[in-house]
């Protein structure tokens, strides 16, 4: 356990969380864009979202995913990337953290999308926003948590395979 608190290990874990968190957020978005593109649904989505909102939404996803990945990996890897906990426990943690990430992203996305509405000063738009916020705070958060858990399970499995590949390369010399 003392090895985990070494400065080198802390720095290593920060880099791994940064890389895996960015990998998760980036691959998720590119996969969604690819699926929408091949099914022909991309133009209508792009037509309904302005560039600034799109950039801000991805920034929120990126920040919450890196944070959630860092929490998932806390103390999970020992020297030379060895597992410090059983793989099922690590994947279980990825599922839970994925759910929290989904809910955190929904809250962040809601704030990003609410800013222009509030700035518009239209009372009817603000009333609709409050009604929407009530829906998001109940059903939306539950839905986002479930979707986040599913995505967390998927990426937990992919990460476990990528860690195995890295260990195999490390041990090959």
């Amino acid at each position: 356990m003392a090895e985990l608190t070494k400065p080198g290990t802390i720095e290593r874990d920060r880099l791994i969380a940064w890389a895996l968190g960015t990998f998760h957020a980036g691959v998720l978005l590119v996969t969604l864009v690819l699926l929408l593109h091949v099914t022909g649904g991309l133009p209508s989505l792009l037509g309904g979202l302005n560039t600034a909102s799109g950039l801000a939404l991805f920034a929120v996803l990126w920040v919450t995913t890196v944070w959630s990945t860092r929490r998932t990996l806390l103390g999970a890897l020992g020297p030379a990337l060895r597992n410090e906990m059983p793989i099922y426990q690590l994947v279980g943690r990825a599922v839970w953290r994925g759910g929290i990430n989904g809910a955190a992203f929904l809250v962040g996305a809601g704030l990003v999308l609410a800013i222009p509405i509030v700035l518009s000063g239209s009372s009817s738009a603000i009333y609709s926003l409050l009604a929407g916020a009530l829906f998001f705070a109940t059903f939306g958060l539950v839905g986002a948590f479930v979707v986040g858990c599913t995505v967390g399970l998927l990426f937990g499995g992919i990460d476990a395979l990528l860690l195995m590949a890295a260990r195999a390369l490390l041990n090959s010399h």
Partner: protein
Amino acid sequence: MDPLHLLVRWAHVAGMAAILGGALLLWWLAARRPPLDDRLTTRVAERYEWIFWAAIGLQVMTGVGNLGAFGNALPPPESAWGTKLTIKLVAVLALALFSVPRTLIVAAGSEADTTPHLSLPLLYGSTTVIVIGILGLAVWLAHG
């Protein structure tokens, strides 16, 4: 063109330059004989991995931003341009997938503060080749 779209395009090109330039530098450092310094390559590689993933996030963000400029006028997937876009998106996914083990190996090396791992020339050489392929696809897309 409005300033935001110009900034998005500039960031996309700058991010690609950082990814490709760094990969080329690391390939040269890792493959160099005799090596410069036992730990120098590991240190530079560690810094590069931080920049690489920042640039990947930026590429994804600005890449979708660039597509957003098309809006409803985005060519369909069955068109020649649409097929090129499909290939480019798959290549980006492949680069991201391939890069995780590379980062993990560099991170493990920096933790131990050891000499560079023997697979680094192969990993950075492969990264360079994939990135040049994606760059080619991007130029092909930009010219219709």
